[in-house]
């Protein structure tokens, strides 16, 4: 029995994610917005996430409880399964009152969907599919193991009441896996449109900026190769605001040394989100060099770095992928270049640097586009509608 803390009322809503929260990653921004909307709609709730790194195992914030799984289980599958069991245990005291459980991955979904006696509805938010992403990031994972994970995903998706995706590409990928289109709701990512931010201390006079993590699909290697082609531009530097700890950047830093650009690259690791906004705002160009891999093309993505760059009013150069085209139109809100082509990327950056008026016009239109339809307010309104729809009951109290 691990009830919430003493005197805590049973919750009507729960949000579970096999993800560390809070953190400097884009996923944490997303969790904050989605969970906040859920808890606003249901008068509080239970947030179950990963902890560690000094985060408290338990917090109570008014009508919200935050519980964190902090056990150091070395093997990922062992850890994921232990998380599932822990989450099931944490939910147990609330089973009689829960109305909505919002989950973010198969390991948080399993303890929620596997109960035949459940009285609550399940929203499965799919930002990515581990069976695809882990093929990139865990090269020793066997095809058989990935197939079992895909089966777990299929099982959880089939038993969810609504599936929320941030991009139409991901929706298409799920439909190909058999998820009915009528069950899928598009809730795009968003960004606040920030006001003026002071120039970050130590910021170079002229710099390109990359914001995000270092997984192979992010294309930081492509960016470094492109940057090497811009060596003739005096004083131009590249600032990498990495959302991951320094040790995760070793391979790309080695590449920067091999390419001879290491002395022109400034690294900033795990900056708080509000500081990243300032680095974005003062950059000449923000680059999102996503690669043309299965993760980005088949599964899809909804890169927050692109949306946040647009909101910050900085010109964006991004890879021309279907998921990015949903966010910006080439030569209207930014520039799209073929993925995995350093020369093309360098050329697009160079042109924006040489035509600053045109770059500013692109950035202004991009910012207007975010303000008009891609703020977190828009996202949360769409999510609230999903909650309303799935919790609607008929006159006899049954789910509609």
């Amino acid at each position: 029995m691990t009830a919430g803390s003493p005197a805590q009322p049973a919750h009507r809503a729960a949000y579970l994610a096999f993800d560390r929260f809070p953190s400097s990653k884009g996923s944490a921004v997303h969790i904050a917005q989605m969970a906040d909307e859920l808890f606003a709609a249901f008068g509080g709730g239970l947030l179950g996430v990963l902890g560690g790194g000094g985060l408290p195992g338990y917090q109570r914030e008014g009508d919200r409880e935050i519980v964190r799984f902090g056990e150091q289980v070395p093997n990922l599958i062992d850890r994921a399964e232990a998380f599932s069991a822990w989450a099931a245990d944490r939910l147990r005291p609330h089973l009689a009152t829960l109305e909505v459980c919002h989950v973010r991955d198969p390991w948080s979904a399993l303890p929620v969907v596997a109960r035949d006696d459940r009285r609550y509805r399940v929203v499965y938010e799919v930002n990515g599919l581990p069976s695809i992403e882990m093929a990139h990031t865990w090269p020793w994972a066997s095809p058989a193991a990935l197939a079992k994970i895909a089966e777990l995903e299929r099982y959880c998706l089939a038993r969810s009441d609504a599936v929320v995706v941030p991009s139409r590409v991901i929706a298409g990928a799920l439909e190909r896996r058999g998820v009915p289109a009528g069950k899928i709701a598009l809730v795009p990512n968003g960004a606040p449109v920030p006001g003026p931010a002071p120039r970050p201390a130590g910021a170079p006079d002229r710099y390109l900026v990359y914001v995000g993590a270092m997984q192979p699909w992010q294309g930081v290697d492509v960016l470094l190769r492109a940057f090497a082609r811009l060596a003739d531009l005096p004083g131009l530097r590249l600032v990498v605001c990495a959302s991951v700890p320094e040790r995760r950047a070793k391979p790309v830093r080695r590449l920067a040394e091999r390419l001879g650009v290491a002395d022109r690259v400034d690294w900033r690791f795990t900056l708080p989100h509000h500081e990243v906004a300032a680095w974005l705002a003062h950059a000449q160009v923000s680059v999102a060099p996503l690669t043309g891999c299965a993760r980005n093309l088949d599964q899809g993505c909804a890169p927050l770095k692109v949306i946040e760059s647009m909101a910050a009013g900085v010109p964006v150069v991004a890879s021309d992928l279907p998921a990015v085209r949903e966010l910006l139109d080439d030569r209207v809100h930014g520039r799209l270049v073929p993925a995995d082509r350093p020369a093309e990327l360098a050329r697009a950056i160079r042109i924006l640097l040489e035509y600053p008026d045109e770059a500013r016009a692109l950035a202004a239109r991009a910012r207007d586009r975010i303000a008009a339809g891609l703020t977190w307010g828009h996202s949360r309104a769409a999510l609230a509608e999903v909650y309303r729809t799935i919790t609607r009951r008929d006159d006899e109290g049954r789910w509609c």
Partner: protein
Amino acid sequence: MDEEDRVTPCDVTTGFFVLGHCGRPAVAGCPSCGKPVCAHHAGPDGLCPECADRLAGGPASPYDPRWARGYRRTYYSESSRAYNDTTWYSSFDDYDRGGFDAGGDYSFGGGDFGDGDGDFGGDFVDS
């Protein structure tokens, strides 16, 4: 040193997305962990919220390596019943699991896994 400097602030972590410390004047030390807690955060017997939660029924020793294993075994049993397949959920065998051990050279990107502190991260799915 004036009076204000001698006030011990409450050390309980607060906040949702941006975390900080409570900072209200502490009225007690948590009898379990010693952390100073204010009247707002002090639970029964003066416990801090984390210790109150843990002592309310959490695992006795979460650092016991048998703990996760025990959890899993119980959970396999429950979830496999719900799945109408008594063997499925334990079907990740040693060979499957071997590809996901922490600490190898390839864990650098960790994907979205392993971005936490230490090599045992496990967070998943960035946007």
